[in-house]
């Protein structure tokens, strides 16, 4: 049995038939080949699979692909716009916020969700927001610094007109 789903991923519309039990993360990684979203655990604990679903951070290992039907998804591959890196992507490089890079996509997607809702997070708010994302390399020190870098960068940038992508 398979079920038809329609999803818009990184601005591109996809219509696919999927097994009902297929996880959203496997749909992204295997059906669409978007391997930037990672699987680090089976229990929605590590956050390596974090994506944006209708502009909210979601752990794609804990959702079925069919649940994403008619949804708008952004993965790490779609975060940079028009060749320009998101301030977080720049911040992680500037502040050495990654080492092995495996947790990084999930970490950035979670942080991006935070910054969308809170333009001036405190250090404790940043740490709390990243609580559902594990990093074994950095001790989180430079990840927090990277997010703080992005906060400053976004403060300095002129606000851009909001552009919605239709499903």
């Amino acid at each position, binding site marked *: 049995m398979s079920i038809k789903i329609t999803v818009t991923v990184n601005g591109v519309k996809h219509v696919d038939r999927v*097994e009902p039990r297929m996880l959203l993360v496997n749909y992204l990684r295997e059906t669409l080949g978007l391997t930037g979203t990672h699987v680090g*655990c089976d229990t929605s604990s*590590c956050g390596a699979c974090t994506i944006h679903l209708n502009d909210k951070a979601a752990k794609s290992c804990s959702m079925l692909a069919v649940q994403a039907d008619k949804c708008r998804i952004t993965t790490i591959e779609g975060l940079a716009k028009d060749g320009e890196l998101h301030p977080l992507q720049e911040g992680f490089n500037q502040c050495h916020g*990654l080492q092995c890079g*495996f947790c990084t996509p999930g970490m*950035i997607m979670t942080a991006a969700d935070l910054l969308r809702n809170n333009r001036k997070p405190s250090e404790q708010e940043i740490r709390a927001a990243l609580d559902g994302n594990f990093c*074994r390399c*950095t*001790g989180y020190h*430079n990840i927090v610094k990277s997010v703080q870098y992005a906060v400053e960068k976004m403060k300095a940038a002129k606000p851009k007109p909001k552009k919605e992508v239709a499903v």
Partner: protein
Amino acid sequence: MSTTNLIGQSVKRVEDKRFTTGRGRFADDIVLPHQTYASFVRSPYAHARILQVDTSAAKEMPGVIAIYTGADLANVNGVPCGWQVNFKNGDAMKEPKHALLAAGKARHAGDPVAIVIAETREQAVDAAEAVVVEYEELPCVIDAAKAVQPGAPLVHEDVPNNICFDWALGNPIEEVNEAMSRASHVTTLEFVNQRLVPNAIEPRSYNSSYDPITDKYILYTSTQNPHVIRLLMCAFVLGLPEHKVRVVGPDVGGGFGSKIFHYTEEALLTWCTKQLGRPVKWTAERSESFLLDAHGRDHITKAEMGFDAEGKILALRVKTYANMGAYLSTFGSCIPTYLHGTLLQGLYTTPKINVDVTAVFTHSTPVDAYRGAGRPEATYLLERLMDLAAHEMNMDPADLRFKNFIPPFDGVNQPGYQTQVALQYDSGNYEGVLKKGLGMLGYEEIRKKQKEAANNGKLIGVGFSTYIEACGIAPSAVVGSLGARAGLFEVGQVRVQPTGKVSVYTGSHSHGQGHETTFAQVVADKLGISMDDVEIMHGDTETVAFGMGTYGSRSLAVGGTAIVKSIDKIIEKGKKIAAHKLEANPDDINFESGKFTVKGTDKSIGFAEIALTAYVPHVYPKDLEPGLDFSSFYDPANFTYPFGCHIAVVEVDKETGEVKLDRFIAVDDVGNMVNPMIVEGQIHGGVAQGIGQALFEGAVYNENGQLTNASYMDYCMPRADDFPFFETGTQVTPCPHNPLGVKGAGEAGAIGSTPAVVNAVMDALWSGGHNVKDIRMPLTAERVWRAMQS
């Protein structure tokens, strides 16, 4: 960016962009044509006889291609151990077969009993659940000290008392006992250095394929050392021709030791792909990572340190039971011995030391190197003793250390320091790092604050740890004499292309350490070219000549030096070409900032032009080969010995026992630094893992041998809000025996930090009048609260 003086700059990493944009390529990202997927049937019991494996129903399931059990692998070797340790009586250690699939008996929970291969991963998982295994559960033993008792269940029938080996190092025990008898004070500590699960966030993943036409294999594996995996798998397990096997370690999502070892799945998938003629892929689920990735630590130790009336250390006596798990992992045997016993000199002038280790099999996951590997256990032992001894003798813990430090020596004008436990330290200034740490801490102020807090019913504690480690592993002859079954050199090839661009092939493997940046800094700096003109390649046995891989903080000290040796050869050859072109003597040519110049003249020729000449050798020295491409094998003269001082400040909640880490100070001396930003990042990560051991982490087995916290829901991984920002400082004492003067930074954080945090908690409790000697790690609120009630 300037092309010279790149060494020492905090250059931003060149590898970051692919990871921040989702374009990293990890093993599980790779899908091959005609891909098949594997899933395992694993023993639910810690110890059981496998009576029958019925695969008939599973074979009929949709998509199933093949199912193999232990019986099918009866004639295939097991995975080997790479380090032979002998019993005290000279007998070789016990090395029971570690079969690719368990046959006859399962020896730990998760031991694989069958492999199922199907068209999709889901089909493989479904069919694995349909395999019916009949077990007879047997009694098990998990605790190493209990496993050696008479009558304990045996892990391997032919290993009496479960003893893999016993081993001792240092001064004769009689001399140590005599020195101890003269002590005016003896501090004794019996403790457990608990078992940890490494938990790289990328689960292990393998994809093995075979081409029957060329008879060639390709294994993609999340490994820290592809060449070592190829060697072990070809020569010891499957008997494959090494030149027909390519092993690729693509982007690897963290290792921390756990991806050094040759795991059974690597060889089994490679065996299966030959049977099937199709690629076979397997990626561990997190619960499998918990059960199968080699664990770390797990020592049960009694340590005694004797002092004279002035507080000078007279002797150290150590007895350790080291848990090996159910089978010997690749380096399992050398961790509690040559990476633990040899570090028990610490930073102190202790004149008499004896360490006695019994390595024990139990019905648990194999134990091997985990960040620091033996050295954290040694440091924990020494540094807990030091703070406890200071408390018992009513001395200041910093003063006690100053009293006992080995005096500064640079290894050039002053000789290296010969320890009582085999090693010779290269260079050190141990009092320097403690002085610096105390300065950063504001020691007097914090002690004042602690006293005030205690008067107000609050518990604040300061804990110290001054550590040393042996890194830059290792001189082959030395480790060979100690039982290593491999050399520990490294290979670095520098290929200058005709246009002057440089391709570098290193046997070191980067899985977070940033080799593509730091190694390029070294090459660009030495050749006076732009970093953009240098590409660092690693992780593929087909492109890299050979390599021993990344562990033991060895990449820059050993792998980097191999590259420097090749650069030296390139410059030397370049001088000959330049001399010919400039009509001068090669001895009169200087190479600086990317230019070959005739000494004392302005006649010069650029690096790129020399490169082109080497490949278009029209005007060229008669006896010189064309080309500009050199490879070097570098075998270090000694280990390197980074050291440092870690200080923790904690607050303990009197009501709940909860520990809050207020400050963490790390002053590390890792020799010269090529990229201080990356060094600091390495320290941060290590410190977080060390604090994780002190406060949060620990494998918990129940009496049935079940790992009860084998998931992220249950195993307490450190999170972002568990830490403050770390305060880091550096001191530089160059390594005297490698050209870069570097010592290595990968493990320092994990080695130094754990005892500092535990000492701080003990100090907090002492400040509140609690007479506590030890709390078992991790120091959960409950354990600390209970300690305060006793």
